[in-house]
Structure formats: structure tokens, C-alpha cells
């Protein structure tokens, strides 16, 4: 049995197979695999006996349920107004320069993806970004460089 199929089965066993468990299953899949593949969504649909389009519709609604290839570390830089005014562009520039990718792209080694996100609730400590679930705040170019170096070493 393919790896993805096995994982979906385990998650369905854990959460249940009713329609309302679709979200927790998708969330955990993203947690484990960084993003949702075409294949994994088909397994979820089969396991829950719902349509694959329904699974895709649900997944594509939520920004944090990625349906495109994502690296191990997904960096989301806040693009909303407070962060913009406090220097979000500079932060993005440093990240792009360090990782050699543009917004929306993933590094060749599939370690990092860079995305712009809507407000993540850190306006009072702008500019802010997330790396997976962890927020980094009051960013400066040198602070971002340090954070990235730390992640690159991991």
C-alpha cells in the first residue's frame, strides 16, 4: 500500500470517517507531508466516501491547507498594512536573496517555501512572519538573516 494511502487510513481510523472529520484529517496530512497531493486527496475522498471535488473544494478554501508543492519549512510573511508600513518589503527581499527563491516558490532541495500571507494578528509587533507554526516578530533584516541561517543548519 502506498505510503500516502496508509497514512490516510490511519488518520481516518484515528478521527473517524464522517464528513465533519475531513478538516482534522486534512490538517494532519499537511502537518505530516507539508502539503496535500492530488493522490492524498483522492485517498481521503475514498476513505470518507465523499467526492474528491468536495475534498479539493474544502482544502482550497483554507490558505493553510496547501494544495501545491511546499517545502519542509513554509515561510509566510505578513503582507497586510501594518507589516507593510513597518518594512515587510525589506524582509521579503532578504529572504528571497538568502534562499534564492521568489514569493510563491520552493527551494530546489524542497526545504523552504516562501509565501505572502494576510494578517496573522501581530500588527503591534510588525513586521511579522511565520515559519510553519512559529511566529517571528519585530523583524529586521539582520534578525531574519539569523533566523534563516539557523533553519538552514537544521
Amino acid at each position: 500500500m502506498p505510503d500516502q494511502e496508509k497514512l490516510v487510513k490511519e488518520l481516518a481510523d484515528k478521527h473517524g470517517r464522517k464528513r465533519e472529520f475531513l478538516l482534522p484529517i486534512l490538517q494532519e496530512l499537511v502537518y505530516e507531508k507539508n502539503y496535500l497531493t492530488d493522490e492524498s486527496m483522492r485517498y481521503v475522498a475514498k476513505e470518507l466516501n465523499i467526492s474528491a471535488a468536495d475534498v479539493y473544494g474544502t482544502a482550497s478554501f483554507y490558505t493553510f491547507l496547501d494544495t501545491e508543492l511546499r517545502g519542509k519549512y513554509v515561510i509566510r510573511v505578513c503582507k497586510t498594512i501594518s507589516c507593510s508600513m513597518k518594512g515587510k518589503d525589506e524582509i521579503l527581499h532578504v529572504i528571497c536573496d538568502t534562499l534564492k527563491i521568489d514569493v510563491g516558490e520552493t527551494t530546489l532541495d524542497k526545504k523552504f517555501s516562501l509565501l505572502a500571507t494576510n494578517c496573522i494578528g501581530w500588527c503591534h509587533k510588525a513586521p511579522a512572519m511565520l515559519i510553519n507554526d512559529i511566529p517571528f516578530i519585530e523583524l529586521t533584516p539582520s534578525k531574519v538573516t539569523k533566523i534563516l541561517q539557523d533553519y538552514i543548519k537544521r
Partner: protein
Amino acid sequence: MINLTINGLELEVDKGTTILEAAKKLNFRIPTLCHHQDLCVAGNCRVCVVEQVGNRTLVAACATPVTEGMEINTNSLSVRTSRKHIIELLLSEHNADCTKCYKNGECELQSLANEYSVGDHIFLDLIVDHKSMIDMSSASIIKDDSKCIRCLRCVRTCEELQGVHALAVANKGSEQKISSFFDKPWREVICTNCGQCINRCPTGALVERNNIEDVWNAILDPEKHVVVQTAPAVRVSLGEALGFEAGHTVTGKMVSALKRIGFDSVLDTDFTADLTIIEEGTELLTRLKDVLVNKRDDVALPLTTSCSPGWIKFIEHIYPDFLKNVSTCKSPQQMFGALAKTYFAQKRKIDPKNIVSVSIMPCTAKKFEANRPEMRSSGFKDVDFVLTTRELARMVRQAGIDFMRLEDVNYDSIMGESSGASVIFGATGGVMEAALRTAYEIVTGREVPFKNLNIIPVRGMKGVKEASIKIDGCTDEWKFLEGVELKCAVAHGLVNAREVMEKVKKGDAGYHFIEIMACPGGCLGGGGQPIPTNSKIRAKRARAIYDEDMGKPIRKSHENPEIIQVYKDFLGTPNSHKSHELLHTHYKERNRY
């Protein structure tokens, strides 16, 4: 009961009535787009907003139940202004190239824009690159996202009526769109091509892939002999698109119009519907014998019908383990196509390569079916072009024919004669009834024990119907069926097909024979039928079909003289080698997304 006033007029309505329904009782029409009688309330398009006195904001009339003492204004200044703005906002995200649109003149958004005199562009046009938003990959359906207003009628249709859910809402906000799984091309996904979404789409976002020009070209080619067949359910609905009330049968006028359009032979799918009954009835009896007498475990029961190409694609996608239960008989359309280029060609001494075979169907899935690679058993493409009822109505208008004043004309021969049993193929339960009329008589030598041959238990609009007939007094050949209670089920609308299939899967139903039609009401409610189609209209078409059956001199398929002739002159016996070659097919498993 609830008392309220609408535009100053008092009325009393039942609890649970919506403002929309209450207003209708007072003859006030409130415009709607996302609302559809067959579907659950969505309340997302907002064009039905009305003013509720004392309420800060306007409310959606389709989604708001009346309350005691409510005062409603359906046409105040704020209502009119808001509605106009709502329509303008919808248009700002709509490719309003109306004159070039297939739905021009039949579009609900266009008529609202006209009604509210939307002229000046006060909002920015957001549709820029509309060419990249069209999916033309399907043989049946064209989906153009640039014309979609996201009312979700199609999504609700696919989920609630058909249980297929090939369409879903993807993304959100300005990116929101109606999408297939992973936005895959339409031909690759689970869509059954039933066309129920087309029938409900208020704009030109979902339309049939039309073959009108292909057919005109064939007609205008002097080398070609163009044969046309007309499905049972077209004669009771075509009139609606050409000026008649729903429920008016126009068989003779339709034949006349087809001749005036220039078809060389105007023939009837009903002929091959009768043929289907002989082939499928024989298949059922053979399978019963194989299971009950020969104890063969490789023969599957229950047998399900195979006339509905939407149902076929549904089972291929969703219940592939049960494909062996599906009758191997081709649909009447395809049987006709195979015979047109063999039997008909021989009899009429026409080179089959010069025959163009056209069918008029209440169905969009038939377009897909005609294009299946299995459907070339005459050595050519058996059915070259499929037109929906709507497309034929358009051709009649293009030809400048005054349809309502046409004289009645009879079908040509051969392959134009039919029984009442074939007419009822167009209604849910009809194939079952027709099959029982013939099978019972084969087995017992007597007519089915129902008054006037009308098998009422399988008729009507209930989603799943069950019936059983006890067989007694069998002739010697069929003694093994003596005392057997033949259990039948009839389902229409794929959501009901799923219910029946789940029962079959569990193995506790004990059915012998199942009729399934993909569309609500059967073919009379098909996805290629005139718009609108709703429960009232379906009921009227059904009545017309059963009246047509009662009026036919021959009521049983096996008594159709042209059927007797085709076996005598060409096919030999039912389920013969030749029959299998031309009239039977096979199915294949498809993906589940």
C-alpha cells in the same frame, strides 16, 4: 398561520413560507438567480432582496421565512437601487459579450439586466482574460468560468439531485470558482454528462456542446443521406421551446419540421426502444435461467438497465464492481445507430459510408455515449451527431418554420414504427413497465395482470419505487419460474440510484431487475430538455407520455411488426450472434474523482 403585509396588502400564509413565496401569492414577482425550485435555498446572489420595515438591512426573500406582523416592501427605492447595484456587480465579474453567447436571449442574468435597465458601467470590469477560462474538453458540456456568477445552482444540482458532486466550490473571495477535482479538465473527472447543471445554469457558464452546424453541413451535402431518429421524451417537450404549453405532445409536427429542415429519412428511436425490450427482456430471462436452473455463479443478478448513459458513466466511476450486473444491451440510440448503417442501409440500398446518422435526444450524456469507442460496430461511427431537444428547437427557428401551424406527418419506414411500450421509455419506470409487459407474456403466454396493461406501481415521481410480480401459470419452457416473485426496483436521479446500489451492495434487497435513469423523472426531465424544467413541468410531460401510450394501437414491444420483421430479415433471434455484434456492448471501470 402567519399574518403579514407586502407592499401594503395584507395576507395570511402558512408558517415556514418564505417572503418570496408569500409575495407570489399576491402576484408580486421578486427576481431570483440562485433560487431554484428543485434545490435547497442558497441565498447567495442577493437579487431577491426586499425591505423589512424595522430591519436595518435588506433581507433575501428566498431565504427568509415570514414572521407575524412582518411588513415587507418589495419595490421601494432602496430595494430598487440595491438590486440594480447587485446586478451591476454580478455583471462586473461576468463576461457580458452577450451577442456572441450561446445563451443570448435565454439568459436569466441578461433578462434581469434588461429589466433593471443596467446601462452605464459604474463598476470596473474584472473579467480580463476570458478566453483561458473555457473548458471544452468534454463531449457533452462546455464550461465557461468567465460567465459564471457563482450562484451554485450547478453545485447543488450535482450534489443534491445527482449525488455525484463532480462540481465543487474552490478557493475563496475573488478567486472563488466552480471547479472539478483539482481543476482537472472536464473529460477526466467523474462528471456523468447528465446535463442537469446546464438545465439549471442561469447564464451561459454551462451549456451543451452543440452540433447544430455539423448537422446543417451534413444536410446541405448532396452526397449524404441524413437519417434522424427522435427519442421518446422529445415529442412531449419540444413544443415548450416553440410556443406550446408544457405537456403538449407534438410528434407529428416534429416529424414535419424535421422533413422541412431537410433530413432524408425521419425515423424513430422508439423502434429501437422496442428492440431494446426484446433484447434486454431475453437477457433477463436468460440470466434468471442461468442462476436459478444452471446454478451458474458467474452470472450476476440483479440485472440493471443500460439505456441511460449518465447512469452508465456513474456506475463505471462509482460502483465498478457491479458492471457485470448492467445489461449488455446498448441504449436505443446506439442500437438505432448500428442498424441505420447496416440493416437500413441494406434495405434502402444506400452505401453506409454516405449515411450520416443524427439523433434528437433529451440528453447531453448521449453526446458522450455516441463518441464512445465501443460505439462503432457498424464499421462506422454508429451515431454521428447528437442534438438535444433545445438544439432541435433552435434549428427549427433557424429554418424559419412556423412550428405551431405545421400539419402532422408520420414517420418514414423502415425503423419508424413503435409501440406504446417504447413511448413510455421517456418516463421513469417506463422501461420496467415495457419490459414486464413483454417478459410476463413470454413466460406465461398471458398479458400482465394489470388493467389496460398499465403497471401503476412503477409509475410516478417517487425517487425509488419497488414492485413485485408473482409469476404463475408458466408455459413448459419457463416452468422454473413458476411461483417466483419477480422483485423490481426503479430509481431516477442518481442520488436515488446510489440508494438502490447501496442496498444491492449490502446484498439484502433481493431484486431481480432494476431500472435506473440518471435524470429526475427519467428522460422527460433530461439535461437536454427545454429550460426551465421543474417538478410541475416534469409531471405534465409524464402525463403526455402515458396518454400517448394509451393512444397507440400497439402497446407491447414484441407486437411491433417492424420488430418482428427485423428479426426475420436480419437479426435472426433475440440475443443471436448478430444481435450481440451490433446491439450489445461492454463497460469499463473509471476513476473515482
